[in-house]
């Protein structure tokens, strides 16, 4: 059975199914992280004292992680571009890099969290640590989710390139949109938690 509009746009929306779907999902994700950013604002406004992020958190290491995630965004776009230009090897190379960079980000976060625990700083230690772990923790879970999807598309999912290349191209575009959103959240999370 053929599902319509998996490749070509619907005339009414001008979008193929997955693209509408992913944007609706990302809109809900904006509400999710938006809610947490709002919590941060109210917690900070209501606090007598609020530490400067850099006095507790490691700015250089988080800057490195920011560069890692931004790099993973360009690699995922280049992976999609490779497919659009019918270059499957370019797709594989850049999707692999995207996934690798994602794991580097996770590794750095694991190190960061470990360092905090080592110094007796836990989510329960203070309001700042609570909101820090909650927001970065939720972000980490989103990274893991994205890695699972990207690994699937690099691995078994890539079979669709042979059977239905245009549909596969759209799947990669949609996976890329999710990955960019995760990067976008970090672009705001980094200065808010670490630099202010």
């Amino acid at each position: 059975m053929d599902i319509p509009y998996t490749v070509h746009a619907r005339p009414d929306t001008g979008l193929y199914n997955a693209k509408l779907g992913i944007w609706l999902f990302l809109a809900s994700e904006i509400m999710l992280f938006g809610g947490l950013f709002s919590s941060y604002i109210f917690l900070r406004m209501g606090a007598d004292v609020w530490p400067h992020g850099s006095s507790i958190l490691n700015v250089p290491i988080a800057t490195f992680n920011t560069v890692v995630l931004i790099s993973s965004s360009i690699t995922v776009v280049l992976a999609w571009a490779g497919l659009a230009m019918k270059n499957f090897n370019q797709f594989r190379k850049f999707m692999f890099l995207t996934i690798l960079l994602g794991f580097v980000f996770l590794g750095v976060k694991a190190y960061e969290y470990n360092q905090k625990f080592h110094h007796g700083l836990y989510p329960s230690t203070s309001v700042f640590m609570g909101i820090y772990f909650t927001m970065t923790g939720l972000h980490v879970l989103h990274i893991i989710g994205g890695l699972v999807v990207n690994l699937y598309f690099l691995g078994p999912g890539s079979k669709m390139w042979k059977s239905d290349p245009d549909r596969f191209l759209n799947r990669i575009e949609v996976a890329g949109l999710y990955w960019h959103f995760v990067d976008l959240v970090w672009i705001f999370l980094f200065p808010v938690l670490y630099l202010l």
Partner: protein
Amino acid sequence: MSHSAAQVQKDVKKYLVVFVALLCLTAVTVVISYLHLPVREAIILALFVATIKGGLVAAFFMHLSTEVRSIVYLLVFTLLISLALLAWPTMCAEFPILTLY
């Protein structure tokens, strides 16, 4: 939105320029933080730079600059709702009626 190989080939250059811009803006963000500006100015400046970076990712990497209008409208709507939800408790001190009590 065209996916033709030729069009994408041209777009790759744009993506790379945006990538370099993002790296530069990250450096700017960090450098500004070391200036130890007063809190209010620091917040405004940091969020301003972050918005530009986010805007670049959204417009170019996420193809929003060439996307159908309805998606952009959806996102604007989402952001307005988020701002409204944020403003509501903020305004309660000034306008007690908003507490709905």
